[in-house]
C-alpha cells in the first residue's frame, strides 16, 4: 500500500515533522509513504517550501509601493533562486505591481503569484475589480473613486500590453497584474507546491491520501489544503482522509469536501495516526 501524506503545520510541529509523524504510522505497518508539505500562504507557505531547492517566497507586505518586493525578488534571483513564489495572500501594496515591474525591468525571472483560493479568478477591472472593491469596501461607497480607479487601472493594463487582463490579475490588490505582465503563473499555494514538487506522479501512484492540518473548521483553517488534497484524490480515484488536531466540521459537511473521514488528534498526532492506520490499511 502506498500512502501520500499532505501536511501543514500542526501545533508546534512544522509541516514536514507533522507529516512524518502521521506517515510513520503507515510506515510502521510496512507500507510505502511519501510526505509533501502544503501551505496556502503566509508563514504556512514559507514553511511548506522550506528546503525545496532554488525556491524562495517573497511577501510584498503592506505599503504604497511594491518596489521593496521587487528588490526582494531581485535579491532572491541574484542569490540563486530559480523560482520566486510571490505570496499575494496577505496585505499587498496599492500600486498594482508598478514598483515591482520597474525593479525587474530587463531581468529574466520565473515568478509564481500565490493567491488565496477565492482570488484565483479575481478580475482586475470592472464592478468586481480592484478599484471597485477598494472604493466600496471602505463602508462609504464612493462611485467616483471606483470609476477613476478603474479607468486608471484600465489605462495601466493597456500600457503594459494587457488590454484584457485575464482572471486572477486582480488578486493581491492587483499585484497579480505584475505576475501576468512578467508571463508568470497565478496559483493557489497548494497548486504552486504541487507543480514545484511534481506531485502528479505521487498522486497517480497513491492508494490513499491523508491530509494533515492543525484545525479543520468553518473559519477556514485547514479547509483550503483539505479541499485541494481531496480534489486531487478524487481525480485519481483514491480515498482521502483528514487528520487534524481539532475537527469542528461534521461528517456530512466533510463529505461535501470529498473527505471520507476526519479524525481529531487532540494533541496526540502520532497516537491518532497509529489508530487510523490500523483501520485504513490493506
Amino acid at each position, binding site marked *: 500500500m502506498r500512502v501520500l501524506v499532505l501536511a501543514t503545520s500542526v501545533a508546534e510541529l512544522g509541516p514536514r515533522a507533522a507529516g512524518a509523524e502521521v506517515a510513520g504510522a503507515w510506515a510502521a505497518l510496512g507500507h510505502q509513504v511519501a510526505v509533501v508539505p502544503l501551505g496556502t500562504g503566509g508563514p504556512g507557505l514559507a514553511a511548506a517550501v522550506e528546503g525545496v531547492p532554488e525556491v524562495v517566497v517573497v511577501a510584498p507586505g503592506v505599503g504604497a509601493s511594491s518596489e521593496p518586493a521587487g528588490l526582494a525578488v531581485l535579491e532572491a534571483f541574484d542569490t540563486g533562486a530559480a523560482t520566486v513564489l510571490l505570496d499575494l495572500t496577505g496585505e499587498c501594496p496599492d500600486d498594482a505591481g508598478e514598483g515591482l515591474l520597474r525593479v525587474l525591468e530587463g531581468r529574466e525571472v520565473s515568478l509564481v503569484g500565490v493567491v488565496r483560493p477565492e482570488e484565483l479568478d479575481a478580475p482586475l477591472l470592472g*464592478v468586481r475589480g480592484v478599484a*471597485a*472593491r477598494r472604493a*466600496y*469596501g471602505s463602508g462609504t*461607497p464612493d*462611485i*467616483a473613486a471606483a*470609476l477613476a480607479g478603474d479607468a486608471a487601472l484600465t489605462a495601466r493594463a493597456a500600457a503594459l500590453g494587457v488590454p484584457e487582463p485575464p482572471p486572477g490579475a486582480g488578486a493581491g490588490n492587483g499585484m497579480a497584474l505584475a505576475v501576468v505582465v512578467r508571463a508568470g503563473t497565478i496559483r493557489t499555494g497548494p497548486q504552486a507546491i504541487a507543480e514545484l514538487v511534481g506531485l502528479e506522479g505521487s498522486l497517480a501512484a497513491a492508494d490513499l491520501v491523508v491530509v494533515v492540518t492543525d484545525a479543520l473548521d468553518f473559519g477556514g483553517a485547514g479547509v483550503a489544503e483539505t479541499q485541494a488534497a481531496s480534489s486531487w484524490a478524487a481525480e485519481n480515484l483514491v480515498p482521502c482522509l483528514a487528520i487534524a488536531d481539532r475537527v469542528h466540521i461534521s461528517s456530512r459537511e466533510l463529505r461535501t469536501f470529498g473527505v471520507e473521514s476526519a479524525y481529531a488528534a487532540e494533541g496526540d498526532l502520532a497516537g491518532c495516526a497509529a489508530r487510523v492506520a490500523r483501520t485504513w490499511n490493506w
Partner: protein
Amino acid sequence: MTDTITGPTTAGVLLTDVAAAKVKSLIESEGRDDLVLRIAVQPGGCSGLRYQLELDDRSFDGDVVTEFGGVKVAVDKMSAPYLNGAQIDFADTISAQGFTIDNPNAGSSCACGDSFH
C-alpha cells in the same frame, strides 16, 4: 394594477411610471432640479453584487442617461452591463415596500433581495 413602461425597451434600465412618479416627488422634495436617479452595481452582499440607488448631482464619463417621465436615470459605465434590461418599480403594498429591481442579468438573489449574483 398594471405598470406601463415609457422608455427605451432595447437597452439600458427601465423605470416604471409609478417609480418615475415616486422619484420625481423625491427630487421635488429636495427642492432641486439638477438631480438624477443614479443606479449602480457594487461588490458586496451575500450574493456578490448589490444595488445602490441614490439621487445624484454628479455626472461621470461614460454615464448612460435615460429619461422617464421627466426623471433622468443615470447608470455608470461599469454598472451598465449588469443592468441592461433591468426594470425598476416602486411598490407600496403589504408585501413589498420601496423600490424593486427586476434584473434579467441576475442569476440568483439572496433571500433579503439586497444582493444578486
